[in-house]
C-alpha cells in the first residue's frame, strides 16, 4: 500500500478517535469516502505493520508508533498550511487541500526548515495546534540558532525560559502547550512581549520560579520548557 495512503488513514483515525482513542470504521470510511469493507482491509494490513490496533465491530485505535507517525504528518500538514497562507499568500480556502497533497512528500528536514522560517508557529490558519517537532525542546532553540534566523534580519536569541540563568531577564516570545495551559499562563501575566525574570531553578528538573509584573509564579518544568523567551541580560 502506498505511503500516502497509509498517512491519510492515520490522520483520519487521529482526527476521529474519541476520548478513549478508538475510531469507528464506518466514520473513517465516511471521512475518506470509501466503503467500510475496503477500510477494514486497510486497517488489517496497518495492524500487521503495528500502526493500529484493530478490533472488529469496535473500531480502530492508534498504537504508540501509529500516533507518532500521525502527529508527524499532522505537524507537516499544519506547518504547510501556515507556509502556504503566510508566505505564499494563497487564498485561505485553498490552503487545506494543497497542504493535503504536499504533506506526503515533504521530508522532515524541509518541514523543520519551514518551522524555523515561520518562527515556530503555535497554530495553523485553521486555529489548530501545531505539534512541536519530536526533536525535543533543547533543539528548538538549537534549531533557531544553528540555522540562523532567515530573512527578517535581526538575530533573536530565543530559548526556553528554563535555559535562562537565575536572575536573568527575558521577554516572552511565544508559548506552546495545550490551550488550557497557554490560557492559564497568559491569564497569570505571561503574555507575549512581557518582561520576566527567572528567579530560581530547582534541581532535578523541578519547577522554576519566575517573576512577572511584581508577582512570583512557580511553574512546573514541563510547562516552563514550552515558554520561549528572548533572553536579555542579567539583572
Amino acid at each position, binding site marked *: 500500500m502506498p505511503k500516502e495512503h497509509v498517512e491519510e488513514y492515520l490522520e483520519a483515525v487521529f482526527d476521529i478517535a474519541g476520548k478513549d482513542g478508538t475510531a469507528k470504521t464506518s466514520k473513517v470510511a465516511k471521512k475518506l469516502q470509501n466503503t467500510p469493507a475496503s477500510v477494514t482491509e486497510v486497517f488489517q494490513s496497518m495492524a500487521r505493520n503495528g500502526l493500529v490496533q484493530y478490533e472488529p465491530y469496535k473500531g480502530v485505535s492508534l498504537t504508540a508508533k501509529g500516533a507518532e507517525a500521525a502527529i508527524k504528518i499532522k505537524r507537516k500538514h499544519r506547518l504547510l498550511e501556515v507556509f502556504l*497562507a*503566510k508566505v505564499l499568500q494563497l487564498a*485561505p480556502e485553498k490552503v487545506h487541500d494543497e497542504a493535503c497533497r504536499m504533506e506526503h512528500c515533504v521530508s522532515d528536514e524541509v518541514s523543520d526548515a519551514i518551522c524555523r522560517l515561520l*518562527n515556530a*508557529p*503555535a*497554530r495553523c*490558519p*485553521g*486555529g489548530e495546534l501545531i505539534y512541536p517537532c519530536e526533536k525535543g525542546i533543547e533543539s528548538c532553540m538549537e534549531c533557531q540558532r544553528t540555522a540562523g534566523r532567515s530573512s527578517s534580519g535581526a538575530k533573536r536569541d530565543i530559548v526556553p525560559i528554563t535555559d535562562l540563568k537565575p536572575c536573568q531577564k527575558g521577554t516572552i516570545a*511565544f*508559548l506552546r502547550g*495545550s*490551550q*488550557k*495551559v*497557554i*490560557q*492559564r*499562563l*497568559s*491569564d*497569570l*501575566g505571561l*503574555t*507575549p*512581549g*512581557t518582561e520576566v525574570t527567572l528567579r*530560581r531553578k*530547582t*534541581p*532535578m*528538573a*523541578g*519547577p522554576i*520560579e519566575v517573576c512577572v*509584573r*511584581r*508577582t*512570583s*509564579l*512557580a*511553574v*512546573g*518544568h*514541563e*510547562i516552563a520548557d514550552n515558554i520561549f523567551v528572548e533572553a536579555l541580560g542579567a539583572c
Partner: protein
Amino acid sequence: MIGFPGTRSTSSFSSSSKRGCKDVDLVVALAGNANVGKSAVFNQLTGVDQIVGNWPGKTVERAEGTLQYHGRTIRVIDLPGIYSFSTYSMEELVSRDFIALERPDIVVNVVDASALERNLFFTVQLLELEANLIVALNQIDLMEKKGISIDYKKLEEILGVPVVPTVATKGKGISELTEGIVGLADHRRVPPAIRYGREVEDRIESLVSLLDKIEIGYPRRWLAIKLLERDEAITKHIAATDPRIVRAAEDLAKEIERIHGEPSGVVISAERYKIADEIAREVQMIRTYEDTLTDRLDRIALHPVLGYVAIVAVIGGLLAWTFIVGAWISGILSLAFNSIEQFEPVVSGPIGDILWNGAFTGFVAGVTLVIPYVLPFYIILAVIENSGYLTRISLMLDRGMHKLGLHGKAIIPLILGYGCNVPACFSCRIMETPKQKLIAAFLVTLVPCTARTVVILGLVAAFVGVWWAVGLYVLDIILIIILGRIAFKIIPGESVGLIMEMPSYHVPSAKVVLKQTWARTKSLLWIVFPAYIIGSAVLQAIYAAGWLNPVNSVLGAITVDWLGLPAVVGILLIFGIVRKELTILMLAVIFQTTDFAEVMSPVQLIVLALVTMIYIPCLATILSLAKEFGWRKASAITVFEVAFSIFLGGIAFRLLSLIM
C-alpha cells in the same frame, strides 16, 4: 444557567443566594484573585470566621454571611479566588455564572494593591461582565512596604467605579467600604466600556452586532469577547442557539491569529494586560524595592539540600509538637477528670444510669483525647499556613508528586489531612483536573488525621514503643506513594503540571492564628462530641443488652482468625467508622482498663493501630468524598481501603509474630 457536565456546585448558587429570604436588602459578592485578602474582608464585614491563609486557592467553598448596616440586611458572599473568567477551573466557571446570571447587587473586587497590574487584569473582566463594581484596594500596608504608592482618586476616575483603600486584616477602611457598597446600591455608576486595540476591537464590535437577538443573560460585549477567545462553554451555548454566529466568530478569531501569530485567547489576554499595565502606570509610583525577608528565607526554603531538610524539620516538628504537647495536656486533663468520677463503665442497673455513664465517658474522652491533640496541631498549622511556607513545600516536592500523577500543590491537602481529612478532601479542589482531584482525595484519606494519631499514640506509642509508632507513620507515607502511583496508572483522565502563585512571606499575626485555630477546633467539636457521647452511650447499652458477643462472633473470622486480634475488636471497628478514636475509647470501655498492655500483646496493638489507620475513611470523610466525587467513587475508595487494611493487617500480624 448553562448545563455543564459536573456543575453540581452551580445549583447551590442559584437556589439560595439572591432573594432566598425576603429580608435581605442587598446581595454583595466578593471577587478577586487568589490570596489577596478576600476572606479577611469577608470576616471583617460579616464577623464570620472564615479561615484565612497565605496560599492561593484556600477558599474553595463559597462562604456566606450577613451584615446589618443602617437598618439594611446585606448578604455577603465570598467567591473563590480566581485570576480570570476562562474555563481553566470549575471555580472560574461558577464565579462568572454567578456574577453574570445571578446578578448580585454589588460586586466588591478585592485587589492586592501591591500587585496592581495582575489584579486589574481581573478588574477589567469584571467590568466587561457589567458588574456593579466597587474596588477594595487591599493590603495597602504591604504595598507601602514594597515602596509603591497609588493615586486612588485617579484610579477611581479611570475605572469609573469607586475605589476604597483597605487593610482588611486590621479592619482599616472597612466602614468606608460598607458605606461605598450602600452608596453604590442607591446610585449605580455605569463605567465606560474598556476598549481593546484596533484589530481586536473592530472584531468585537462586528460580533456584538450579530449577537443582537441573543438573550441569555450574559452581556453581549462579554459574549463577543468570549467567543473570540474560543471559550468552550460559551461557544457551545451559542452554537445551540445560532451556529452561524459561532462560525463568524471562528473566522474573526482566525483573522486575529493571522495578524498576531498567536492563539486569539492569548492575544486578548495580552491586550487586556496592556490595558491593565497602562492604568497601573498612570496611577502608581514605584520606588525600587527588594523583598529581603522573602529572598533570604527562600534561599533556605528552596535550597536544593537545605530546602528538604527544612520540610522534614517543619512537618516532623509539627507532628512531634502535636504528640508531645498533646500527651502532656491529655495527661493533665485525664487526671483532673479521674478525680471527679471514676473512668469505669456501668453495665448493669437502670438503663438511665447506663446511658448517662456512657455519655459521660464519651464526653471525657472527647476532652482528653481530641482537644489536647487538635489544638496544638491547628495552632502550628495556622502559623505555617499564614507564613506562606506551604507554597514553598509545594514547589520543592513538585517533582516527586509528578510520579503520582499530581503536582506540587497536592501536598497542601495532604498536610491538611494530618489535621482532619474532611477539609483536606474539599481543598483537593485546588487541583485542576478531575483525575488529579480524585487521586489527591484518595491519598488524603490515607493520611492519619489527629483522630488516628490518637489511636496510634494511645495503642502503640504508649504501650509498645515510640519508634514503632514512628514506623507506622513512615509505613503510611510509603503506602501513600505506592497506592498513589497505582491510582495514577489506573484512573483515566489528564494531568496538568504546576502553575502556582508564590506569595511573599509574612509574619503571622497572633490574632489571626488563634481565631483560625478556634474556628477549626469548633467545627470539629460539633462533630466529635455528639459522636462520642452518643456512640459511647449506645455501646454501653449494647453491651448491657448482651448483643456484643453475637456481633463479634460474626466478625471473628476476620478479626480473630486472620488478624489475630481479640474477638471484642469486631464491634470497635464498626464504631470506628463514625470516628476513628472511638476504637480506642471503646476498647477502654470494654476491657474496663486503659492499660492496654494488660489485655493485648504488642503485636496485637500494632496490628489494631495499623488496621485502624487505613481501614476506612470515617463517616464524615466518606460523606465529603461522596459530595465531591459521587457515591460510586466514594464507595469504591471505602471498600478498597477496608479490604486493603484487612489484607495488610493479616500480613503484618504474621510477620510481626515472627520477630516479636
